[in-house]
């Protein structure tokens, strides 16, 4: 087993144990997902049908889960990370260990959220595909959260940065203004938003005649985005930082 892989395994197990040790915190993190799903079901249940706005809210919530789960996870233990780097810890292994655990957490959250919605109101389109899109959105959110956490100097600053990541997802979307009114810049920026690609999966798979190649393309773009963000996060960690605790 390569050094990076071995390190990421050990760190992932340690991180998992830390998360499982805080049962109250874990419960709150997991409970928010079905709660948001239930709120969606209450709103859209009143018209007894799903709409594109519901898909957008679900995709945005998935990115939100990822961001919130991850935004403090590096900065809070930066001192430990810097110390362990002196003994050969690789930034890549460290990021991978965080991604493994947070991805599992995000997967459970999106299943709970969509399960809560489907419990009351069956959505159009195949559920596994929509879960995959939500998982991709959650993973991209996790990446953005980890990136913020890698560059932030305090936990408070990392938390304050989360709305700055989420607001553009709403602003550069069809929910703000119809896409036929976009300028070229807005259209380009929209394509840089993970929510946009997850939403495309929902929209296409719910269409009367789905264009499956667009569904596949959107999932591929989401995966590429995640890889890119995790890569940038790793690079951001290469800078050694003095941590005053």
């Amino acid at each position, binding site marked *: 087993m390569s050094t990076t892989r071995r390190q990421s395994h050990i760190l992932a197990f340690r991180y998992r144990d830390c998360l499982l040790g805080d049962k109250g915190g874990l419960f709150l993190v997991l409970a928010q997902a079905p709660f948001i799903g239930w709120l969606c079901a209450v709103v859209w249940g009143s018209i*007894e*049908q799903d709409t594109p706005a519901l898909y957008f809210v679900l995709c945005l919530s998935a990115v939100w889960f990822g961001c919130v789960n991850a935004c403090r996870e590096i900065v809070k233990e930066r001192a430990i990370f810097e110390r362990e780097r002196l003994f050969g810890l690789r930034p890549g292994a460290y990021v991978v260990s965080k991604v493994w655990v947070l991805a599992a957490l995000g997967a459970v959250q999106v299943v709970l959220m969509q*399960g809560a919605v*489907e*419990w*009351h*109101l*069956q959505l*159009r389109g195949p559920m596994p595909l929509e879960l995959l899109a939500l998982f991709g959105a959650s993973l991209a959110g996790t990446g953005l959260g980890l990136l913020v956490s890698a560059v932030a100097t305090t936990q408070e600053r990392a938390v304050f940065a989360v709305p700055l990541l989420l607001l553009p997802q709403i602003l550069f979307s069809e929910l703000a203004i119809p896409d036929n009114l976009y300028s070229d810049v807005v259209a380009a920026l929209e394509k840089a938003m993970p929510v946009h690609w997850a939403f495309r999966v929902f929209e296409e798979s719910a269409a*009367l*005649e789905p264009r499956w190649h667009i569904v596949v393309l959107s999932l591929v773009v989401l995966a590429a985005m995640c890889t890119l963000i995790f890569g940038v996060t790793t690079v951001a960690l290469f800078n050694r930082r003095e941590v005053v605790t």
Partner: protein
Amino acid sequence: MKKVVTALLVLGLLTGGYLGVAHVSGGVFWTMGLALGGDRGALRRLALSFLEDIQFKDFVSAAGYHAPDIRDGVDIPFLIQRLFTVRPEALDIMDYEVVFADIDSGGLRARVKLRVKVKLLMRELIEEQEVMLYFERESVDDPWYMKLEDSLRQLSPDSTKQH
């Protein structure tokens, strides 16, 4: 060996837990072909089975979801024409799914909303239609019967009431 047993145990627990959730949800989630979901699950299966009969133009079987006393008199092709506003031979039911199944507080009346994707063959047009099927039963121990014939029958004015 211990790892295999633990893995099987975890898998069994997860499957059991999932099937429990599928049952409590009323058959909203895939039940792996098991008759789970209680009354709501039964209604979902009835509605889906009815639409499958319609899809394959088995009108005798489709009439069988009505109460036995009216079953023979149910004109399913005519009801389909009224429901989809197209003649059965010009209708291709491509796909269908249950949106929700709902039972009243007394447990004797129910409604199932379905989303049906149809192709209107004459016009080469694909449409999505939402259909509500109504069911009733005499008591909670009796089987559910469909009220399609009731719901779609041409209304005739009640001569004893003002209009």
